[in-house]
């Protein structure tokens, strides 16, 4: 009887450590990025001075296009052999689902994540393809730097 009593006294209080661990878990769950499929982490984005931070409040749906330095385009984790064909399909699907008239722009923002070493000519071809397929809202993603362009 007395032995069990002493064992009871020695038992460490796990509640504070559990509390702390749950707080850490909460933190990591909140910062975890669920859009990882859309984003190609291998891209080296251009660094600019102080562009506006990403505000995706009123942009509607987003279509993220990752343009690699060799000009290939990755969308939703897969390299698209023909970006024109892909965008044409997307455009038709969005138009049908959202009931968009042929003369109206699509309520989707094309978000271009372009590698810093993509040539301007390649970029313009992709932008033209977006425009041709009625994706008139185009955003360019850059890496924000707090200080100026050249420190």
């Amino acid at each position: 009887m007395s032995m069990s009593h002493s064992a009871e006294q020695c038992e460490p209080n796990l509640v504070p450590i559990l509390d702390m661990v749950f707080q850490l878990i909460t933190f990591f769950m909140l910062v975890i990025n669920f859009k990882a499929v859309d984003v190609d982490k291998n891209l080296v984005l251009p660094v600019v001075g102080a562009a506006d931070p990403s505000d995706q409040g009123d942009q509607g749906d987003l279509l993220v296009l990752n343009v690699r330095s060799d000009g290939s385009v990755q969308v939703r984790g897969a390299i698209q052999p023909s970006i024109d064909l892909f965008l044409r399909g997307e455009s038709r699907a969005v138009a049908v689902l959202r009931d968009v008239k042929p003369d109206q722009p699509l309520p989707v923002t094309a978000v271009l994540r372009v590698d810093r070493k993509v040539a301007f000519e390649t970029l313009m071809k992709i932008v033209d393809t977006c425009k041709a397929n009625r994706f008139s809202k185009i955003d360019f993603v850059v890496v924000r730097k707090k200080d100026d362009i050249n420190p």
Partner: protein
Amino acid sequence: MIRRSRRHKRKHSEAEVTLNMAAMLDMAFQLLAFFILTFRASPIEAQISLRLPDSPQATTSSSVQIDSGPVDPMDDLNFPLPIDLYSLPNGELDKIVIGSRVMKSDDPVETMQMYRQEMVSLFEKPIFDSVVIRVGKELYYEPLMQVVDLCTKQKAKDGSPMTKISIIPLK
């Protein structure tokens, strides 16, 4: 004696309902380990929204003469500021031309610095409503976006932020 036994009885019953935290803690640590191992801090990303012109129009720079000296009062001007970006064959920035002002250095970073100073002096008194950036075909995306970013920080003639920026290929 009776009181002591009652107290002991209550203590015993309390000990029986105590939860075993070890298993829960074990699970929590496993979750924590997963999140720590999969956590990858991403850089702060920003977005530049542009509406490109439907039909690109070439603007001749011969109509614009901008000197490096102090800006004269030119309130009646109603033409865009032309910025020409020339590239080296490897895609790096060669030079930036604004009107007759040429910004060129062996170091692209220094060229960008010169461009920045030029823009600060040009937009000390806002006289332009729009900007036309003509870009060499081989130029990398990064210097282009740095130039565009600096344009978006300027003020138009009416004091509003510069939003009319056209980007067309350099002929």
